[in-house]
């Protein structure tokens, strides 16, 4: 595994920075154009959620390159308010901000693996992975 690279999410423009870096990494690993768009979009969703609901946090990228697997792991970390009902936020259309409520369930469909851990008033960690086909 290569050393992790991270982007701090504090301002709105950091959302763009994170997804651009993620797309670049995905391209280098050998993802096709459609998967690059999927990964960039998922990063954008995770980064915006940090910006909107936790104010600040981090998006980190790991390149996975073993004998059997090649892929990218994207982790979103924040110390915000946390999510109390995970089942609820994973429903299509659920939003507390007047959005489409498409973000989290969308990320799950865009990526191959999705893992959400959250503790109320402590923060949220979302780890997602996409494998090169």
């Amino acid at each position, binding site marked *: 595994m290569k050393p992790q690279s991270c982007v701090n999410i504090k301002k*709105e423009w950091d959302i763009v920075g994170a997804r651009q870096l993620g*797309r670049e990494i995905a391209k280098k690993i050998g993802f096709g*154009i459609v998967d690059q768009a*999927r990964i960039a979009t998922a990063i954008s*969703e995770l980064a*915006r959620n940090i910006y909107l609901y936790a104010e600040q946090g981090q998006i980190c990228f790991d390149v996975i390159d073993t004998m059997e697997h090649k892929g990218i792991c994207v982790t979103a970390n924040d110390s915000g308010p946390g999510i109390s009902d995970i089942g609820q936020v994973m429903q299509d259309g659920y939003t507390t901000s007047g959005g489409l409520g*498409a*973000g989290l369930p*969308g990320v799950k*469909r865009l990526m191959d693996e999705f893992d959400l851990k959250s503790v109320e008033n402590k923060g949220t960690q979302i780890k997602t992975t996409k494998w090169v086909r």
Partner: protein
Amino acid sequence: MRIPILKLHHYLLVSIQTEIDDHTAIQFQEDLLSKIHKSGSSGVVIDLTSVEMIDSFIAKVLGDVVTMSDLMGAKVVLTGIQPAVAITLIDLGIHMKNVPTALNLEQGLTKLHQELGE
């Protein structure tokens, strides 16, 4: 950064050429509505050929802009959505059911022409 809005007869043309951040998207929504108001345009083509990704936020802004323009009497057609963008939108569960689309700018204009009967 602002997205330029061009006027062509009684239509407005927008070609989005840059990576859109949230602020630019909101600014664009305001700019387009006030331009429709000032020019009295009856149709708008927004060309997205150069756009590499649309996430749920930008999709919402675009969808809203279509509905708002409609309320003001201007029909909006989105053109040039790339395959990768279309596929990610479908994955996100965003179908933009009420938004008219066309393959490219020319066909977008033709579509406006047909539907507005002008």
